[in-house]
């Protein structure tokens, strides 16, 4: 049945795309990140379902997507490496007030992003007050104060 294949292909493609475009988009930091995620969901839905307005197709597509999600999570439990490849690893960006410039550059994170997170999460004022800033797998930045 076409819907199942399309839903599966779409799921795997989206996993790949979001792995590649960077974690920050998923965290929806800016308004445009949110708009981007919304537009992507619209484009994906159109191709998966097409002209088919039946309940059956909708349910099948959802079952396929959730099914693949569950299957992947079970597989990840067995193979730790899959966990890394699919979800990534957390990354320490700042240690004892000193940011790792190379890591910030490669992860495409600004110092101002880190300071924003520090203000929002811990009410910190300056970089020197940050013991650790970690870019989590979800794309958010977590702050550990001194």
């Amino acid at each position, binding site marked *: 049945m076409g819907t199942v294949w399309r839903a599966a292909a779409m799921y795997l493609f989206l996993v790949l795309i979001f792995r590649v475009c960077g974690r920050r988009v998923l965290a929806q930091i800016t308004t445009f990140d949110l708009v981007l995620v919304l537009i992507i969901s619209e484009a994906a839905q159109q191709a998966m379902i097409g002209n088919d307005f039946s309940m059956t197709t909708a349910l099948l597509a959802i079952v396929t997507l959730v099914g693949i999600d569950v299957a992947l999570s079970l597989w990840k439990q067995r193979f730790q490496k899959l966990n890394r490849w699919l979800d990534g*690893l957390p*990354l*320490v960006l700042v*240690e004892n007030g000193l940011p790792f410039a190379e890591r910030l550059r490669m992860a495409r994170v600004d110092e101002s992003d880190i300071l924003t997170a520090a203000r929002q999460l811990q009410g910190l004022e300056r970089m020197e007050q940050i013991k*650790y800033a*970690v870019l989590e797998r979800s794309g958010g930045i977590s702050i550990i104060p001194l």
Partner: protein
Amino acid sequence: MSEKANKQTARQTEKTGGLEIEEEPRFQRRSWQAERVAWLIMAALIVAALSGIFGDGPLSHAESMDAAGTLRVSYERFARLNAPLRLEVRVLTPRAGELRLWLSRAYLDHTQVESISPPPERVAVSADQLVYFFRVTDAAAPLDIDFHLMAEQVGQLRGQAGTESSAPVSFQSFIFP
């Protein structure tokens, strides 16, 4: 906990001085490299799409004409499933009266005809062809007949067209899913 696991945690905690976190610099670097490669692939895909590899572009537009130069078919070499597909037929030397334009069923059976502009007077069906009848009032200028179709099958779609006074003209489209 096993000895090995103990040593691993100790090594990692030493690296980040007290933060118990799973970090692998080598994996991270390879991850970033893979990211950059993926970006190149994305850029290549966009350039390919703009050039017409997936339809609607300079690489995709094609024309087929019969040897005598009486019939010309403009078509797309590449198209997509459930997307509009256009076939422009130009009869260069029409005759006043009735024009009989036939299209192969091998092509039409795998597409949905959305509209034909101008609409034919009537359609005759045979095993391997569909013949469209048009009434021609002005035989002075070339006649344009546009078929607005929608591809319903993935893969290579081969078709032929012709009039009662021309040799068959072949065309083919590859339909992407």
